[in-house]
């Protein structure tokens, strides 16, 4: 595999665009469930956000390797859903055990979020996008990292807003998920402002 400068540059551009212009949560609606249910406090969202960045980057890279070096030669592309899910579940399990043994402090902080991540659509979604858009390996790593950071940014912003929201008066039907969705809409609106930043990515 040749590593050209161009490829690294492309990976960088894809990473930045995944954070801002093509935010995985605000433009592709992936990972909404934990976004709505875990975003009540900034502290927990930071933990979950870091876990997502880490797992997303690693599983994207792993899935690229297994897809292009196992499934494509065997012509079993339709099998990718199952393979991706298994890779993600196995990876999460592995990281959980590793953290438990080696770093109790980190385990305490991230450990409870790891099982949640297996069913986070953002993780599987990023892997599927990576296949559909035909990224190369370096670009895939950039994409995974960017998507993770984008998700992290969105959930932290949301948690910050929701903490302030506790003291405001909201109509009863709108409380909880309703108002969270409206805020997400406003955030998505703000993020569309980045659209012009990376023209012709």
């Amino acid at each position: 595999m040749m590593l050209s400068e161009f490829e690294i540059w492309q990976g960088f551009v894809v990473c930045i665009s995944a954070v801002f212009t093509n935010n995985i949560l605000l433009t592709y609606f992936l990972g909404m469930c934990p976004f709505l249910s875990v975003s009540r406090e900034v502290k927990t969202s930071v933990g979950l956000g870091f876990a997502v960045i880490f797992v997303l980057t690693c599983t994207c890279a792993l899935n690229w390797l297994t897809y292009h070096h196992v499934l494509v030669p065997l012509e079993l592309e339709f099998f990718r859903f199952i393979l991706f899910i298994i890779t993600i579940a196995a990876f999460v399990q592995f990281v959980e055990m590793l953290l438990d043994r080696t770093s109790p402090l980190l385990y305490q902080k991230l450990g409870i979020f790891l099982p949640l991540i297996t069913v986070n659509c953002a993780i599987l979604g990023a892997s599927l996008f990576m296949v559909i858009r035909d990224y190369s390996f370096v670009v895939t790593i950039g994409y995974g990292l960017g998507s993770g950071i984008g998700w992290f940014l969105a959930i932290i912003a949301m948690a910050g807003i929701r903490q302030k929201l506790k003291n405001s008066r909201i109509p009863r039907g709108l409380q909880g998920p309703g108002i969270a969705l409206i805020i997400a809409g406003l955030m998505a609106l703000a993020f569309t402002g980045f659209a012009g930043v990376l023209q012709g990515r």
Partner: protein
Amino acid sequence: MTKQSQAKTIAVEGLWRNNPIFRQVLGICSTLAVTNLVLNTVVMSVALVFTLSLSAATVSVLRKFTPRNIRMMVETLVIAFYVIIVDVVLKAYWPQMSGNLGPYVGLIITNCIVMGRCEAYGNANPVGRAFLDGFFNAIGYSFVLLIIAIVRELMGMGTLLGFAVPFFSGPNWDKWIIMVMPPGAFFMLGIVTWVFRAVQIAREEKT
């Protein structure tokens, strides 16, 4: 309880009282993205009805043979099995739609509502009821999505299922481009949740 009234309770639970979208707020991840066009939504809904009802039934059939500690994995594999069927069929007979929906067909696997129903209902109930529960939950999910899709396409593009609608496609209607963009989906879902919940609360207070 007779069979008929039981089926009726399941239907009411899935469609209204415990609706997947505005009550449980599950599974909105993957499907908001396809509500910009009514046709995409219809295809997605059909795929979801198929997957959810059959995988709930299958999980229910397998519930006696599945060891408890690996049941999540088994459920995921069962769901993935049906999703692959949908994906392959769609790719073979309607490649254009398959391209439109992109990764969102595959994302039905991690759609929380499928997993949620299998886990909460299919795992503990006989096949027939599990199938009905899955079916009505999927329908309850689909009709809310359809409402969102109809409003978004009508206001954003002035069309319905691709056909121009008299007033909305005319010169007197400024198209709300924001409606077909991602923020429109968030706003619509927020508003729909608000309206339905408010109606539910008002009804509860009456009784």
